[in-house]
C-alpha cells in the first residue's frame, strides 16, 4: 500500500461514497433490466430456425431469396451468414449450421470424415477476368489460361509481351508492368480461378495447383485483395492490373469502367460470360455428372462453352435432428431450384447466375429427397 504520487484533487470522500454505490447499483440494474427485458419479451413461439452459412458468392442470392420465401412460409426463420465456403462445410458437418453454402464440392477425404453429407447444386455461377488497362477497358482483351497462368507466376511481366500481342494483334498494348491481383482471403473465387489455370496449363497444375487459398508465386507488384470489393478497388486504384471477380459484380465492374477479358475455352474460341456460353458449358458436362453431383465444370469442352463456371452447392447433412427441420430444409431447397421459385429469372439476374438445366435439377431434387 505504499504510495508515492501526491498530486491530484482531494475528493469529497463521504459524498462520493454515496455516489459510488448509487452508480454501481444503477449500472447493474440498467444492464440486468435491458438484458432480461429484451429476452423475456420474446420467448413465445418457436418456429423452425434454419441457419445458412458459408460462401460469400452464394450469400447475396440467399439474401434476396429469404425475405421472399418467408412471405409464403411463415413457419420458418432463416438466418443467413456470409463466412466462407470452408466455414460453411465445417459448420454444416458439425451441425452448427443446417445449410453450408460452398462454391466447391467437398473432397473425397472430407466426405470420408463426415459421411452422410450431401453436396446439392442450387445454381451456376461464373467468373470474369477483369483488367484496368487505360485505353483498352471498353474493348475485350483476349486471354488464355496459359497466358494468365504466365502472368500470375511472373513469367509474363509486361502487357506488350509477345504472347499477349499475338492473341490481340489489333491492339497496341503498352510496355507497362502487369499487376496481378489475387484474393488473400480463402475464397471459392480463387478455387475456380486456379482450377481453370490448372486444367488449362500443366505447369500450373504441377506447381501452384488449385484450392480456396493457394501458395501464389511471388510476383513484383502483386496485390492481395480481400473480398470481391477489395479486388475491384485494387483494380480501380492500380492502372495496368489484372484480377478475377465473381460474375455477381459485373455491374460494379461496368460502373467503374474496368475491362472484361474474353477467355479462350478448351476448343480454342474466345468467349465472354453470358447465359448462352455458361449454359453451353453446363450442358457439355451434364451427361457426366455423377449422382452425388460432385464435379468440376471448369474448362468444359464445346465451341461456345465459357471456361470458368461452377455449381454453387448447399452442403446439407442427410440426417437432421428433427423431422420438422428435415421438412423445412427439403421445402426450402426444393423451392430454391424451382424455376418458378428461387431459380426464377429475377433472382438469377440479380446476381448474374444461371439456373440449373433440367437434368441437373432432377439430380439435385433426388438428393434433396434424401434429407430425413
Amino acid at each position, binding site marked *: 500500500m505504499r*504510495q508515492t*504520487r*501526491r498530486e491530484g*484533487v482531494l*475528493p469529497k470522500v463521504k459524498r462520493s461514497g454515496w455516489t459510488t454505490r448509487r*452508480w454501481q447499483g444503477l449500472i447493474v440494474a440498467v444492464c440486468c433490466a435491458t438484458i432480461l427485458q429484451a429476452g423475456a419479451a420474446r420467448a413465445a413461439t418457436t418456429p423452425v430456425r434454419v441457419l445458412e452459412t458459408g460462401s460469400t458468392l452464394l450469400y*447475396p442470392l440467399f439474401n434476396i431469396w429469404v425475405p421472399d420465401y418467408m412471405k409464403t412460409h411463415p413457419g420458418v426463420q432463416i438466418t443467413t451468414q456470409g463466412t466462407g465456403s470452408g466455414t460453411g462445410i465445417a459448420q454444416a458437418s458439425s451441425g452448427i449450421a443446417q445449410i453450408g453454402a460452398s462454391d466447391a464440392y467437398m473432397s473425397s477425404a472430407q466426405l470420408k470424415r463426415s459421411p452422410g453429407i450431401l453436396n446439392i447444386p442450387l445454381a451456376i455461377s461464373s467468373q470474369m477476368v477483369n483488367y484496368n488497362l487505360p485505353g483498352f477497358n471498353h474493348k475485350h482483351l483476349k486471354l488464355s489460361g496459359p497466358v494468365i497462368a504466365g502472368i500470375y507466376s511472373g513469367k509474363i511481366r509486361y502487357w506488350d509481351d509477345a504472347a499477349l500481342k499475338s492473341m490481340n494483334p489489333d491492339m497496341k498494348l503498352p510496355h507497362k508492368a502487369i499487376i496481378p491481383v489475387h484474393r488473400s482471403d480463402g475464397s471459392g473465387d480463387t478455387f475456380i480461378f486456379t482450377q481453370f489455370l490448372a486444367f488449362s496449363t500443366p505447369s500450373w497444375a504441377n506447381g501452384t495447383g488449385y484450392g480456396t487459398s493457394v501458395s501464389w508465386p511471388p510476383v513484383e507488384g502483386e496485390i492481395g485483395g480481400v473480398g470481391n*470489393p477489395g479486388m475491384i478497388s485494387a483494380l480501380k486504384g492500380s492502372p495496368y492490373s489484372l484480377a478475377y471477380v465473381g460474375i455477381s459484380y459485373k455491374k460494379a465492374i461496368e460502373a467503374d469502367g474496368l475491362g472484361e477479358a474474353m477467355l479462350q475455352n478448351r476448343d480454342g474460341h474466345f468467349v465472354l460470360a453470358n447465359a448462352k456460353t455458361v449454359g453451353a458449358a453446363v450442358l457439355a458436362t451434364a451427361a457426366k455428372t455423377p449422382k452425388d453431383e460432385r464435379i468440376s465444370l471448369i474448362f468444359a469442352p464445346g465451341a461456345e462453352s465459357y471456361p470458368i463456371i461452377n455449381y454453387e452447392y448447399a452442403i446439407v447433412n442427410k440426417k437432421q435432428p428433427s423431422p420438422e427441420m428435415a421438412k423445412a430444409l427439403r421445402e426450402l431447397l426444393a423451392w430454391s431450384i424451382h424455376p418458378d421459385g428461387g431459380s426464377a429469372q429475377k433472382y438469377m439476374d*440479380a446476381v448474374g447466375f444461371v439456373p440449373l438445366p433440367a437434368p441437373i435439377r432432377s439430380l439435385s431434387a433426388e438428393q434433396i429427397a434424401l434429407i430425413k
Partner: protein
Amino acid sequence: MSHANEAFRLTAAPPPVPRVPRFPLRRRIFSIAGWTTTALALILLTAAMLGILEMVFVRGIGALVPATFTTITQGTGGGLLNAIEGTFVLSFGALLLAVPFGMAAGIYISEYRNGWWAKTIRLLADVLVGVPSIVVGYVGYVTMVDWLGWNFSVAAGAISLAVMSLPYICRTTEMALQQVPGDLREAAFALGAGESQVIFRICLPAALRAILTGILLALAVSVGETAPLLYTAGWSNYLWDGKMTHSPVGYLTYAIWTFISEPFASAHQLAYAAAFLVMALVLLVHLAARLVFDRHRR
C-alpha cells in the same frame, strides 16, 4: 489539473512580458521549428479523424431511414434493429462479466503494486492486449461453440468480448487509483480503517469517475469489435430470443464487414448505416466518458 492550469498561465504569460526577443537566433529557430512540427503532428491526427468521420457520416447519413431502427434485417435490405439490439446485449453482457474481474485485477495491481502476483497480472494484462481478436474468437469457437455445444450464442460472444476488454478495464482502474493521493490512504489507515475499507470507502469513491471513464472506453472498444464475434455470436436476422446459448445474435460490425462485400446497393446502404451507427455510438460513449471525467476534474 488545477496545478497544471496555473502552470500554464504562468508560462503562457510571465508577468513582465519583455517585448524584445531576448533569445539568440539559433534557439529561436529551434523553438519555432519545434512548435511547427508539433502543430503539424496534431493537425495530421485531427485531419485523419475528421476524414474518417466525414467518410462515415456523409455516406451513412443518407442511408439512415426510420426503418433502420424499427425493422429487422431482411436479406439485403430492411433495417438494423436486430443488430442494434444485439450490439447492446453483447456489449453490456461483456461489461457485466468483465467489470468485476477487470476492476478486481486493477485494484489489486494498484494497491499491492510491488508483489510478484501484481507484477505478473500487469505483465499478462499487457500481453492479453496483444492477443489478436480473431484468436480470442476462434478459441471461443472451438471451446464454447463446438465442444460445449452452445452453438452461436450470446454467451459465447459476450464471454469472448469480456476477455478482450479485461485488460483495458484493469489498466484504467489501476491508473485511476494511482491518481488518488497517498495521503488519503495513510490518513484512513491512521484512523484504523482496514484494507478493504480503505479501498472500497476511500480509494474507489475517489477514483470512481476515472474508472467509469475507463469502463465506458472499454464499452466503446467492444461496440467496435468484429473478429471475436464472427465465430462466437454468429449473426442473426432476427431479434434475440432471450436464450443465452443456442441462438445466434446480430451486431452492427457484422453488418459493416459483410454487407459492404455484397454486390447490391441496398446492402451497401445497410453497411454504411451500420458504420454510422457504430461510430455514433462510440462517439456518444466517448462524449459521456468525457463529461464524466470533466466533472471529476473540476
